[in-house]
């Protein structure tokens, strides 16, 4: 099936009222969430996840994708107008957006940001459409050892993404893997780590864990933090300018840099949009066309950062759809929708349920158009949402977390799990322990266990298949190289230093 016929099938699958409505609601909610202070897409998606269970899979996925993409756009509003980034990934937009707004060019800055994000979103959706099928074709050749090594490599990439927090990120990932093993062993039907508690026989469910870690913990931080003060005078200047909309196309280099880094980093597990925007911003500084210094209202800074920010979404979905490996916490939760509906993300999805793949691609394209249209119509009143007291929002989120966790199974047991993980999330936030790896570990744990059992079952417990099969051996080599790289680079540095010292001495 070629790209265009897949796309037309995808558009056709969006043509039902429930899917179209969920797409629109998701996009609108995403923008609002991006603008609201302190609320991120992770919280919203975690709280919304239980409500998607009663929907058709594509409707649920479209709703969550709408929130995911909408928040990228919304985050730019507060970054530019009140110097308060809605998301971590909008920080770079603030550096040039706010000075521009302060000098009376708020409309230009907003238009630049929205159009750059739009280009990033559309390009990354197209990249998803073009790259996903060949990648899935390659991944279809994966046996159990390759699947195991791909997950191990993803786990190491997650740890590496946390740089100095490598060990604690791996600890949380390990905890996630461990939690995925709780319940009845699928092979022997024996209980594992249940401690006689009937509620955990079927395992620890993902929904309350996500609601607790992302929803409750975030809400508890919001209600217990002081209300931030800001200069609200620029909010009155919110609006858009048509000239600003066309301006990003004057800087194709900055746009290309943002697109490349956003998509490439989106594919890597757990690295996240925040890092891609920083890298794109600093890369755009080299050879910038506009003479305005960066940090004082250079349009190329906004273009590169916003392009990178929104092009993450397509990249992150590639690994989910082709390998069943989530790129970040949000795509991990979106993967929960697949799992609940009995859909296994991975190469087989392209054969078994092509309508889902095509639908995701089409909805990513449509979502970006809908978001841009909504922003054109509502940017002025939307900007006023920045006035909302985060404590009031936190209270509303706490109340919604209760319903979200409860309604997943109509059980207070789910609320108890959410509360436990809410406390854990708060403790982790206080101690600066990352929690995203825990969710990623939980999501990948089942596949890891099944593949590991299969691999060892066939090799009768021997490790040989992991290095005897070429793809698995390559993945293993990359994993080992990633782990020993700090030691190797240290070794190289030591060897280089005496030589450099000598050459300096001779000069």
């Amino acid at each position, binding site marked *: 099936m070629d790209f265009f016929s897949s796309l037309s099938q995808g558009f056709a699958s969006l043509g039902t009222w429930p899917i179209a409505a969920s797409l629109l609601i998701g996009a609108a909610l995403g923008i609002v969430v991006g603008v609201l202070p302190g609320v991120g897409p992770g919280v919203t998606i975690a709280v919304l996840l239980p409500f998607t269970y009663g929907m058709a899979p594509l409707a649920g996925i479209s709703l969550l994708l709408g929130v995911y993409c909408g928040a990228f756009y919304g985050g730019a509003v507060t970054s530019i107008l009140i110097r308060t980034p809605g998301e971590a990934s909008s920080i770079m937009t603030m550096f040039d957006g706010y000075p521009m707004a302060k000098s009376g060019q708020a409309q230009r800055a907003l238009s630049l940001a929205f159009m750059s994000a739009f280009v990033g979103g559309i390009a990354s959706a197209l990249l998803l459409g073009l790259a996903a099928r060949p990648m899935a074709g390659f991944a279809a050749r994966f046996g159990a050892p390759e699947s195991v090594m791909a997950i191990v490599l993803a786990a190491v990439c997650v740890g590496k993404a946390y740089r100095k927090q490598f060990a604690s990120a791996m600890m949380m990932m390990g905890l996630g893997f461990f939690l995925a093993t709780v319940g009845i062993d699928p092979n022997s039907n024996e209980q594992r780590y249940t401690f006689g508690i009937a509620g955990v026989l079927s395992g620890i469910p993902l929904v309350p864990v996500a609601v607790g870690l992302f929803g409750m913990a975030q809400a*508890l931080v919001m*209600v217990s933090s002081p209300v931030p003060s800001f200069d609200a005078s620029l909010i009155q200047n919110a609006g858009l300018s048509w000239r600003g909309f066309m301006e990003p196309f004057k800087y194709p280099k900055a746009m290309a840099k943002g697109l490349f880094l956003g998509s490439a980093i989106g594919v890597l597990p757990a690295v996240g949009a925040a890092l891609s925007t920083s890298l794109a911003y600093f890369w755009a500084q080299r050879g910038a066309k506009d003479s305005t210094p960066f940090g004082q209202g250079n349009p190329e800074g906004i273009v590169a950062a916003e392009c990178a920010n929104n092009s993450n979404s397509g990249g992150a979905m590639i690994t989910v759809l082709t390998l069943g490996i989530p790129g970040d916490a949000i795509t991990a939760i979106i993967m929960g929708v697949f799992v609940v509906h009995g859909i296994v993300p991975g190469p087989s999805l392209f054969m078994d349920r092509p309508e889902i793949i095509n639908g995701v691609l089409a909805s990513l394209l449509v979502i970006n158009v809908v978001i841009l249209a909504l922003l054109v119509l509502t940017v002025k009143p939307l900007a006023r949402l920045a006035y909302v007291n985060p404590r009031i929002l936190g*209270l509303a989120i*706490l109340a919604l977390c209760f319903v979200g966790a409860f309604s997943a199974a109509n059980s207070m047991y789910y609320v108890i799990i959410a509360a436990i993980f809410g406390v854990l999330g708060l403790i982790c936030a206080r101690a600066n322990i*990352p929690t995203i790896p825990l969710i990623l570990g939980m999501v990948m744990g089942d596949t890891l266990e099944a593949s590991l059992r299969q691999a060892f079952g066939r090799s009768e417990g021997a490790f040989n298949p992991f290095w005897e099969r070429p793809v698995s051996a390559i993945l293993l080599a990359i994993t080992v190289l990633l782990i020993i790289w700090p030691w190797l680079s240290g070794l190289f540095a030591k060897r280089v230093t005496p030589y450099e010292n000598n050459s300096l001495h001779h000069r």
Partner: protein
Amino acid sequence: MAGLVELYQRRRAVEVADSDELDSSSASVVQAMGMLVLFGLYMIGVPWIGYLTSTLAFLMASGAWLGMSRRATLTLSVLLSLGMWWVFVKVLKVYFGHGWLI
């Protein structure tokens, strides 16, 4: 184990601003603990008293604990609890159990 060792040694390993992780550096632990206690009471209250009344009581008590103005607390509590009760109980038919009030 390595994570626990790192936690013990942690002094320099904080880079929250560059990640999607939660930044709680300005949060008050006492207020968060108080909110957790109120949430625990809310969990007990829903099946016992009823969803609407418990939500109203939880929001009012939370507003008071967080030092919000009486007007804001009352408006938020009444609107949010009624709105959520209508959406989840009446429209989406989520069953929270029979409390001795609504």
